């Protein structure tokens, strides 16, 4: 098992600079002799494909959406962090590094996080040069705002649509390369498997989602930029099409899967309102700057919120965390909401909701001022719920949002399969056990624009002059036939249950036992339930239609089949990690005050899991984490 993080030696702040010098180079004329596959066209994928195309590599980029612009990075609302220190409030690369390591509850790799903080400033330069219309001050300079988990203002934003604008910037850079012929773009094309030959990633097998045609693609390196796996919960803030098939197929072909139990549940989402619900909608974290979170003090208080007097309300975040109040980090805010709902104090459908109340700020600043700040969010809330948040408090509840876990990668972002690189949310590298707000966009673009384009050359250089593997090679043929067989199997079961009904059942198990809080017995039970559901799936699912057609049921069926296996690994990892850290909260491991209690002695490591077969237990490997620069402390936001 190739399992060396390859973190460069030397002082932290010199590692990346030194490493860039030590990397092997491919000379400009030789780059066009190498082909690279990029799967996914979100911030990470589009920025990587564009940058590699600019360098002269021959790139093929794939996405399942009908346009590269639609990848789910587009839905990010709040902003992107960078250590520019424009507000002159004491920010620095070191502070961004420190906040991110602390925010991740000391479960990330120091060297990766420092590199992320270093290149954050280049990202803003690049994005501004691309014409991204960031918010500006009156003098024409870039505006910043603050976000959870930080005490400086370092978040750049474009209204409530920062993700959209960054995504369009990367998409436009990609479109330029498509027009120039350096990148071949394949939309509505889904990667269904990875081809590994002689221990190296050599290509992928795809399905054309319009015609159903299967194609093999050979390349000198494969880059996965396919996002996270929050849809394992069925209800999440992810787009309906987001899926883990690419990373899960790669995992089955030998790529280690790291920290699958680190899943972030975002505190401010619109609560579920019915059994037919298809997804959950996020309301930006920025609302917590002015909204006050509360529940009635008495269980079963059915009065409308306006009729509950101040003295009978519990502003539980302000009470428990006077220093940070409503702006505590995401994991803490989410757990606190669950705790009050578990006590029967929740409001709305099924008692799973808490109030986010703007009455105080409306009285203090007036409606016009609140509208200028949050108008679009209030409008969206009303569109979905039919309630006007200027008149009644919003109801919110946490929802699965982002996954810090993902395929294990070394410092060069290469997985344990040589030639297979993993970037953006799909890898595990930078956020540890909890991601801070506005850091996902930063990481996706850091990997795609400023890390991978350097490190991939180091892998390719020694392979100069080698012939690419022909797609007629037995390795491709074998994977193609396995993919075909799997699709026919799904179509032929012809059982009684729909894909969605079984996916919902899986989601409920994950949410109940591997969501915001976990404990041994529940996780053990969940593993059994997931196995039973997986068995039922392969015997009783009904997938209508044919393989050689546009068949959305079949697309879903393949993705959900992978989720059963991933869900089991997620529970196993949660069971194995006998501590609480960041988003991973084990009921057995809490401080006297009910906060997460880490066990640094036994768990200061990355758990990287090896696939050993569908019916055997996975093997866990450990990458020890060393904190030479930020000594681990108990996080406190009181």
């Amino acid at each position, binding site marked *: 098992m190739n399992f060396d993080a390859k973190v460069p030696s030397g002082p932290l702040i010199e590692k990346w600079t030194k490493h860039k010098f030590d990397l092997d180079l491919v000379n400009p004329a030789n780059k066009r002799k190498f082909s690279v596959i990029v799967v996914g066209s979100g911030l990470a994928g589009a920025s990587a494909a564009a940058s590699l195309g600019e360098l002269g590599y021959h790139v093929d980029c794939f996405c399942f959406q009908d346009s590269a612009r639609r990848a789910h990075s587009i839905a990010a609302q709040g902003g992107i962090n960078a250590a520019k220190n424009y507000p002159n409030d004491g920010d620095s690369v070191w502070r961004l590094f420190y906040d991110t390591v602390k925010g991740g509850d000391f479960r990330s790799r120091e060297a990766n996080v420092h590199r992320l903080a270093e290149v954050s400033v280049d990202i803003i330069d690049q994005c501004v040069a691309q014409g991204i219309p960031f918010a500006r001050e009156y003098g024409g300079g870039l505006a910043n705002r603050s976000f959870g988990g930080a005490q400086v203002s370092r978040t750049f934003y474009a209204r409530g*649509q920062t993700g959209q604008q960054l995504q369009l910037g990367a998409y436009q850079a990609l479109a330029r390369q498509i027009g120039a012929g350096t990148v071949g773009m394949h939309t509505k094309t889904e990667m269904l498997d990875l081809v590994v030959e002689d221990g190296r990633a050599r290509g992928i097998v795809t399905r054309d989602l319009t015609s159903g045609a299967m194609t093999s693609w050979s390349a000198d390196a494969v880059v996965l930029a396919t996002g996270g796996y929050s849809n394992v919960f069925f209800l999440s803030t992810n787009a309906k099409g987001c899926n883990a098939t690419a990373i899960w197929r790669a995992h089955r072909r030998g790529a280690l899967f790291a920290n699958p139990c680190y899943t972030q549940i975002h505190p401010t989402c619109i609560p579920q309102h019915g059994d037919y619900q298809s997804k959950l909608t996020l309301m930006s974290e920025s609302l917590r700057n002015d909204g006050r979170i509360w529940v009635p003090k008495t269980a079963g208080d059915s009065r409308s919120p306006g009729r509950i007097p101040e003295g009978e309300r519990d502003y539980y975040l302000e009470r428990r965390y006077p220093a940070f109040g409503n702006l505590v980090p995401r994991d803490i805010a989410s757990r606190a909401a669950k705790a009050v709902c578990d006590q029967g104090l929740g409001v709305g459908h099924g008692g799973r909701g808490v109030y986010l109340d703007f009455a105080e700020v409306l009285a203090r600043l007036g409606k016009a001022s609140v509208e200028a700040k949050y108008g679009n969010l209030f409008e969206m809330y009303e569109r979905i719920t039919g309630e006007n948040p200027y008149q009644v408090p919003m109801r919110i509840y946490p929802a699965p949002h982002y996954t810090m876990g993902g395929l294990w990668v070394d410092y060069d972002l290469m997985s344990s399969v040589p030639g297979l690189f993993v970037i953006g949310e799909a890898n595990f590298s930078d956020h540890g056990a909890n991601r801070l707000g506005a850091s996902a966009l930063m990481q996706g673009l850091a990997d795609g624009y400023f890390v991978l384009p350097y490190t991939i050359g180091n892998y390719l250089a020694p392979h100069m002059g080698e012939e690419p593997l022909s797609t007629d090679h037995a390795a491709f043929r074998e994977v193609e036939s396995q993919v075909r067989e799997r699709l026919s199997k799904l179509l032929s079961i012809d059982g009684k249950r729909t894909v969605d009904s079984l996916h919902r059942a899986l989601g409920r198990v994950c949410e109940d036992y591997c969501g915001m809080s976990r404990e041994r017995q529940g996780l053990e039970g969940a593993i059994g339930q997931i196995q039973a559901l997986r068995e039922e799936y392969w015997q009783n699912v009904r997938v209508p239609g044919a393989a050689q057609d546009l068949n959305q*049921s079949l697309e879903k069926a393949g993705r959900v089949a992978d989720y059963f296996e991933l869900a089991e690994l997620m529970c196993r990892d949660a069971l194995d990690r006998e501590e609480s850290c960041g988003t991973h909260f084990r009921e057995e491991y809490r401080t006297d005050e009910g906060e997460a209690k880490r066990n640094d002695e036994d768990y200061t490591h990355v758990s990287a899991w090896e696939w050993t077969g569908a019916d055997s237990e996975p093997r866990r490997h450990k990458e020890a984490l060393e904190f030479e620069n930020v000594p681990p402390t108990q996080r406190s936001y009181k």
Partner: protein
Amino acid sequence: MRLTLHIWRQKNGGDAGGFVSYPRQDVSPDMSFLEMLDVLNEELTEAGDEPVAFDHDCREGICGACGVMINGVAHGPEPGTATCQLHMRKFKDGDEIRVEPFRSRAFPILKDLVVDRSPLDEIIQAGGFISVNTGSAPEANLMPVPRRDAERAMDAAECIGCGACVAQCPNGAGQLFTAAKISHLAELPQGQPERASRASAMVEVMESYFGSCSNFAECEAVCPKGISIDFIAQMNREYLRSRFK
């Protein structure tokens, strides 16, 4: 709520297609329009029929993947709202709802409600970008951008590329989409070096696929982001100016 849906069903591009009626009971007013279709699809699947194919992804009104004609209006009756954010409380008990794909010569139907909108990508590939290679950007605050210009650029940049403007236009024009991108980049100092060549290249590709604009303004009326047709006027100016460069 009880409703009757009349949904366009078409097996593939070569099939003639036609409306099929689906009476619906127990529709909750809190459902989104797409959730109502989800429930129908679950029932069709259980009954051994093929579900209705429709494009969708984020369901937050930002990815631009969804979009159908609802009673002849792109994205349906609620102004400034993409299909995925439309909720059933906007309909009345007993309503008959006609659901069709976005119709335009430039958007061939692939199946049921799914169309091919790739010409929109080709317009961007022709010049809808600023040519700046990764790593070659100057320090971000070197070039101040007046707040008003940044805001106006953002007004245009909000376009989600759904194609509703094309579908609603009697001429099948792609002007609002193209104008939004040309204006977004023309408003900013970074967009100036390629301003003329961009406008000219994008308009030429647009005209090879889409119809002409005759100022119906239907596009603005259905745009889920409320993009103004003022940008079409701006595009015309940009294009004209590019002819004299």
